[in-house]
């Protein structure tokens, strides 16, 4: 069996498993997994830029927030129905990522991290500044009655779960397909050796530019989905912490692997969920995991599995 056939089977199998879990899990864990799949979509988007292209951004929360506020404000103030509002969210994320890509890609390495961090901070402060519309830190709730798509009530647990699965599955299959295509191979080339990729005649800037936009739009889709499914839009999601989270999930699951983002998000979510029952200092766990990963497992869980046992893992 060819590797691309094997990985397609793996991804479809994973989606089928998640589909089945939607009916088997008790309500509490079903709700958790719905949330995790939305966050994992965010991580999938982050992985396109960090895992495959090798660009470490510390400001992805601004794309997540762009999708979230794009959809949220369009529904809350504009009175749009969910699907047009979702498209507004995607357009906001696309526009923001194009501007950020145009400016930030002039820098590399550490400067790129700091520039993205600063842009995200600017976005966060801008949300606070326009508190009249965004309600700042407090945020706003999207009315339950408006969260319906073609008769499906997205506030019911099972519908919400399936909607999250559709968004996550789409993002997973699109990125997996993309990485097998020549476009994705060039991105990996940029990560491994930018100069050599340039020398081979590829337009590195254009590929990086596209990677930032794809990554930003997927992150924005996750933000819009989060707002739609859980009905809340707030500035917390634009803070530095929400830029660190996808980095943490991807590093933990395995940067540059297709299923790593989901694995990392599941582990981290339950680790934090469990420890916040014990102490209010639950971010301590995130800190310890980050340090341990940097020291001992730079490849992450799926990355280590691929290195040791299953070499074909996508």
């Amino acid at each position, binding site marked *: 069996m060819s590797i691309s056939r094997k990985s397609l089977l793996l991804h479809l199998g994973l989606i089928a498993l998640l589909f089945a879990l939607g009916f088997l899990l008790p309500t509490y864990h079903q709700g958790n997994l719905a949330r995790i799949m939305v966050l994992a979509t965010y991580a999938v988007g982050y992985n396109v830029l960090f895992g495959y292209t090798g660009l470490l951004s510390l400001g992805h929360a601004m794309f997540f927030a762009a999708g979230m506020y794009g959809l949220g404000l369009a529904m809350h103030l504009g009175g749009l129905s969910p699907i047009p509002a979702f498209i507004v969210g995607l357009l906001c994320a696309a526009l923001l990522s194009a501007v950020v890509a145009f400016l930030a890609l002039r820098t590399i390495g550490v*400067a790129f991290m700091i520039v993205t961090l600063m842009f995200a901070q600017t976005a966060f402060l801008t949300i606070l*500044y326009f508190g009249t519309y965004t309600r700042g830190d407090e945020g706003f709730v999207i009315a339950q009655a408006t969260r319906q798509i073609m008769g499906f009530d997205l506030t019911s647990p099972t519908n919400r779960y399936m909607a999250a699965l559709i968004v996550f599955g789409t993002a997973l299959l699109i990125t997996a397909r993309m990485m097998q295509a020549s476009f994705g191979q060039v991105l990996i080339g940029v990560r491994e050796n930018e100069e050599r990729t340039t020398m081979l005649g590829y337009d590195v800037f254009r590929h990086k530019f596209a990677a930032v936009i794809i990554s930003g739009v997927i992150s924005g889709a996750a933000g819009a989905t989060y707002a739609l499914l859980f009905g809340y839009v707030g500035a917390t999601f634009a803070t530095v912490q929400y830029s660190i989270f996808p980095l943490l999930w991807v590093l933990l699951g395995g940067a540059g692997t297709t299923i790593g983002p989901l694995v990392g998000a599941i582990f981290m979510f339950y680790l934090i969920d469990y420890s916040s029952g014990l102490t209010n200092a639950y971010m301590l766990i995130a*800190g310890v995991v*980050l*340090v*341990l990963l940097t020291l001992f497992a730079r490849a992450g869980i799926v990355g280590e599995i691929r290195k040791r046992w299953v070499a074909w893992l996508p």
Partner: protein
Amino acid sequence: MDFGPHLLLAILEGAVGAAVLALTALGLSLVFGVMRVVNVAHGEFFMVGAVVAWFVADAVAGHPAFGFTAALIIAPLVAGLIAVLVDKLVLKQVEYDPEATIVGTIGVLYILQQTALMTYGPEPRPVEAPFSTRIALPWFEWGENGFAMFYPWGLSITSYKLFVIFAAAAVLVVFWLVMSRTRYGLIMRATQLDRETALAFGIPVSRVYSIVFGIGAGLAALAAVLIVPIQQAYYLMGAEPLLLSFIVVIIGGLGSVRGTVVAALMIGMSDGIISVFLSPTLSKIIATLLVALVLVFRPQGLFGTKAA
């Protein structure tokens, strides 16, 4: 108050902020200059300094000056020792790889911050100033009766704030003397210029790195002890000085000490002055965006000459 006295007051308040910021940013700049790594946990060493100062001041009985003096010595030492540990246990293990260091120090940031939350608690607490006499300042004006000197209501500064400005200036001068006139300064500058050649000349580069990282954290902690009688010690207080120090180091040119001090004065003063006249959120938006653009279009900083 009239515009003139109001502006003078804003400048004085700005000078206090600038003095503390200069020390904090100097620590970040020293670490970046010598070790070529960005320490994202720098703001947390500032926080550790403030929190330790509170514990020390709380434990020492008698006049507040005793507690404060003890804190002035102990807090930078504690922060410095933690930093040396971080250097040995984390930074050295990843061989100072720039990206791994950033991710690792983000982890250290959360560990320090959350440990403070667990031990010190979530509420902000003040440290009593060793002395705090209110000094009214005179204002001169050409009035109807010719030249007159009077004391406008509200135009005053405390003796402690003046002390902060002078103490920070003294530390900066000592730092400059150490760097430019002593053997230790020479060793640090040699390591900064060329790590390999320094190693070949028998300089223990790995120990220099530990010490530099410790001094960087110690400077942040010292700045925090100075500010803690004016602001309060709080476990989330590290974010603001981190961001401002980043701004200063970037504007001043990554790794340039002289640029850092000039930029700290500029940013600290204008932060104090602007926030008196503009909405603080708007002024922060403008400042952050400008700094990002400086980094995009002039990565060597406004004063730096060599590429970052």
